[in-house]
C-alpha cells in the first residue's frame, strides 16, 4: 500500500490520466456529493460551530507553540500509566521499532486499525520485508490491501471504487464466487474473514486521532468497531502518532470530538470512540508502546506560515468540497494525504523540491478554508508554497513571462502599447468573434475553450476619447 511509486509524478500529468477514467469520475462525484451534503446538515445543527472552530484553532496553535513541553509531558503521562514511549525521527526508524517489537514477541501476523500515519511511513511494506504480515481490518483498507491498491481519500480510502468492483474483488479473494454486490453480503464476507484474525492476533498496530499530554490518553475514532477489536483483544498494542496529534488537556477532546465526526462523516458522533490510558492488568492489551513520529513535521513547524497545516485533524472535509479533488480523485496527489490538505502538507513534509506542482493543484476557490474545522487558511499556505516553488525552480520561461508582465504593468503607457501589439498579433488567430486556436503555451486554453480576443478599443482609449 505504498504511495512511493507515484510520489513524484507532476500533478497535471497524474490528473490528466485520472480525468480520462470515466468510471473513477462518476464514483468520485457521487461519493463526494453524498458526504458533502451530510456534512452540511450536521454542521448546520450546531449554533456554536464558528466558536468551536475558533476554539480548535486556538488549542492547536497553543499546542504547536509549546510542543516541546507538551511532548515531554505526554511521554511522562504515558510512562506513568504503564506504557512505553519511543521517538522516531523518520519513517524508517518508526518502522524499525514496530518490526523489532514484532520480532521480540515472536509475532508473524498482526492486525491494524486504519491509520494514515502508518500509510505515510509505508509500515505494511516494511513489515512484509521483515517477514511480518499486517492485516488491515478497516473495510475499505481491506479492499485496497486485497487488491494491491492504495487509498485515495483520507477517510474513505476506497472512495474511487464502487460496489460492483468490490464484489468482483471479493469473489476473487476472500468470498465465494457467487457473492452478490449486496452491501450486507459484502460486509458479512469481510466480517467472517476478519473475525478469525482478530481472535488469533497477538499484536495490533494503531494510529491515534488524539494523544492527550495531560493524561497520556490515546483516542481513536472509527465507524466499524474493528478499531475497538484491535485496541482491546491482542495482548500487545503499538500506537503510532505524529507529534502534532497531541492535545494539551483531556477537556480539549470536548471541542475536537464535536468537530471531527460532523466534518468527516457528517455524523453527530462517530459510532466508536476508543480512549485508553496506559495498560490495565487483566483488561485489554498488557503491553502498550507509543511511537511519536517526526518525519518532516519539525520542518513544517519551523515555517511560520506553513505550520498551520499541522493543525489538521484529518477529517477530509476539504477533500469533499474541493472541485479539483472531486474530479481527479486522490491518487493524482501522489501521497496518502490528497486534496487541499495534501497540497499543503506533502510539499512541506517531503520538501517543496519533491512536490513542486502540488501547491498549484488548486483554483484557489477557498471552499476548503470555509469548511476546515480547525480553520487552516489553506489558500494562504498554497500561495506561500507557490512562492517557495518558484524560488526553488530558478529561471524558467514562466518566470521570464511574469517578469515581463510586471515590467509592462509598471507603466500605463507600456500596458497600452502591449495591448495594441497583442491586438495585432491576435489577428491571424481570430475566427469570427473568438480565437479558436493558439500556439503554446496558450494552446492549453484553446484546446478545450475558445478565447475572447482583446477588444478593438480598450477602456482607457474609450475614456480618453470621451473626455
Amino acid at each position, binding site marked *: 500500500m505504498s504511495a512511493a511509486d507515484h510520489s513524484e509524478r507532476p*500533478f*497535471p500529468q497524474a*490528473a490528466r490520466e485520472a*480525468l480520462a477514467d470515466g468510471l473513477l*469520475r462518476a464514483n468520485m462525484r457521487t461519493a463526494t456529493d453524498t458526504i458533502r451534503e451530510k456534512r452540511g446538515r450536521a454542521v448546520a445543527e450546531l449554533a456554536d460551530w464558528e466558536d468551536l472552530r475558533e476554539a480548535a484553532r486556538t488549542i492547536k496553535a497553543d499546542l504547536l507553540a509549546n510542543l516541546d513541553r507538551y511532548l515531554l509531558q505526554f511521554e511522562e503521562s504515558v510512562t506513568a500509566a504503564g506504557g512505553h514511549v519511543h521517538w522516531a525521527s523518520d519513517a524508517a526508524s518508526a518502522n524499525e521499532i514496530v518490526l523489532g517489537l514484532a520480532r521480540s514477541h515472536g509475532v508473524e501476523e498482526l492486525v491494524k486499525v486504519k491509520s494514515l500515519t502508518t500509510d505515510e511511513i509505508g509500515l505494511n511494506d516494511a513489515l512484509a520485508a521483515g517477514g511480518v504480515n499486517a492485516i488491515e481490518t478497516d473495510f475499505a483498507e481491506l479492499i485496497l490491501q486485497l487488491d494491491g491498491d492504495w487509498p485515495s481519500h483520507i477517510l474513505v480510502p476506497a472512495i474511487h471504487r464502487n460496489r460492483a468492483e468490490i464484489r468482483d474483488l471479493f469473489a476473487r479473494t476472500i468470498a465465494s464466487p457467487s457473492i452478490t454486490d449486496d452491501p450486507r453480503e459484502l460486509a458479512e464476507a469481510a466480517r467472517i474473514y476478519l473475525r478469525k484474525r482478530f481472535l488469533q492476533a497477538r499484536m495490533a498496530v494503531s494510529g491515534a486521532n488524539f494523544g492527550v499530554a495531560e493524561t497520556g490518553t490515546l483516542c481513536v475514532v472509527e465507524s466499524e468497531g474493528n478499531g475497538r477489536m484491535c485496541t482491546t483483544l491482542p495482548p500487545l498494542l503499538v500506537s503510532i502518532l505524529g507529534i502534532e496529534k497531541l492535545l494539551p488537556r483531556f477537556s480539549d477532546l470536548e471541542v475536537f470530538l464535536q468537530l471531527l465526526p460532523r466534518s468527516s462523516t457528517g455524523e453527530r458522533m462517530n459510532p466508536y470512540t476508543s480512549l485508553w490510558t496506559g495498560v490495565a492488568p487483566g483488561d485489554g492489551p498488557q503491553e502498550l508502546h507509543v511511537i511519536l513520529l517526526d518525519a518532516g513535521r519539525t520542518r513544517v513547524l519551523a515555517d511560520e506560515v506553513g505550520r498551520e497545516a499541522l493543525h489538521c485533524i484529518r477529517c477530509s472535509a476539504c477533500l469533499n468540497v474541493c*472541485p*479539483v479533488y472531486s*474530479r*481527479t480523485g486522490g491518487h493524482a496527489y501522489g501521497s496518502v494525504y490528497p486534496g487541499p490538505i495534501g497540497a499543503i502538507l506533502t510539499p512541506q513534509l517531503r520538501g517543496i523540491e519533491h512536490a513542486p506542482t502540488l*501547491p*498549484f*493543484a*488548486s*483554483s*484557489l*476557490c*477557498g*471552499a476548503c*478554508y*470555509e469548511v476546515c474545522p480547525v480553520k487552516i487558511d489553506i489558500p494562504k499556505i498554497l*500561495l506561500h508554497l*507557490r*512562492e*517557495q*516553488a*518558484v524560488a526553488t525552480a530558478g529561471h524558467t520561461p*514562466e*518566470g521570464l513571462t*511574469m*517578469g515581463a*508582465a*510586471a515590467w*509592462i*504593468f*509598471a*507603466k*500605463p503607457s507600456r*500596458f497600452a502599447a502591449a*495591448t495594441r501589439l*497583442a491586438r495585432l498579433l491576435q489577428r491571424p488567430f481570430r475566427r469570427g*468573434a*473568438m480565437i*479558436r486556436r493558439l500556439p503554446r*503555451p496558450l494552446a*492549453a*486554453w484553446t*484546446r*478545450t*475553450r*475558445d*478565447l*475572447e*480576443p*482583446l*477588444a478593438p478599443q*480598450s*477602456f*482607457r482609449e*474609450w*475614456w480618453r476619447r470621451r473626455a
Partner: protein
Amino acid sequence: MPPPRTPTLDCGGTASFRLRRPQRVRIALFITCIGDAVRPEVGRATVAVLERLGHEVSFPAEQTCCGQMHINSGHRTEGERLAERVAEIFADAELIVSPSSSCVGTLRERCPQLRGRLYELSELLVERLGVSELGAVFPHRVAYHPTCHSLRVTQVGDAPLRLLRAVGGLELVELARAGECCGFGGTFALKNAETSTAMVADKCAAIVASGASVVTALDSSCLLQIGGRLARERAGVRTLHLAEILAHA
C-alpha cells in the same frame, strides 16, 4: 435621466417631512487589466450605471493591474509591488469601485489602506449607496454564477441577487451547484488545463440545464472561462457581467 427611486422619508424632528435626495458622490474607477483590454464594455456599463444615479466617475489613468496574477502564481514581490502601486494611485480617492470581486479581494488583502474605501460594484450599490433598484430592464432568463472570490474573499453577500431581482423583466433561474468554482483560477486554467476544463464543462452543463439564455457574474475573468467553453460547445448561452445587465434600461 435619474432612475425611479423609492423616496426615503426623513423626519426632521418636527412635523415637516422632506424628501432626501440621493447624494452626488465622486467615485474613482479601478477598471482592472482584463476590464481594460478584453472587456471594456463592462467598464463602460459601470460608468453608465453610476452616472445614471447621478454620481461622478473618475478614471485615474496611471492604473494598470492589481498584481493578483503574480501573487497567485508565486511571484509575490512583483505582485505586491503592483498592488501597492494601485493603492498609491488611489490614495486620495474617497470611494473606489471595481467591477471585479477578485481584484477587490486581492487589493483589500494586500493594501489595508484601501479597506473601507474600495468596493466591488454590487457592494457599492447595495451596501454603500443603498440602492438596489436601478430601473434596468432585461427581459431574459438569467443564471447567476456566484464566483468564488465574491463569495469567500470579498464576501458580497446577496447584493448581486438583490440587484438582479429588481431588474425589470428578468427571470432569475436556479443554477445547480452554483457555488462551485468554474475552474478559471488564473494560471491554473493553463497549468492544470484538463482539470480546469473538467470543472468548466460541469459548470456549463449546469448553466445549459438551467434554461438560461444569459449567465452573469461579478468577475470578467470567470466569464472568459465560462464564455470560452460555452462558445466552444456552441451552447447558445451568452455571458454578461452584472454591470452590463444593470446598464440595460
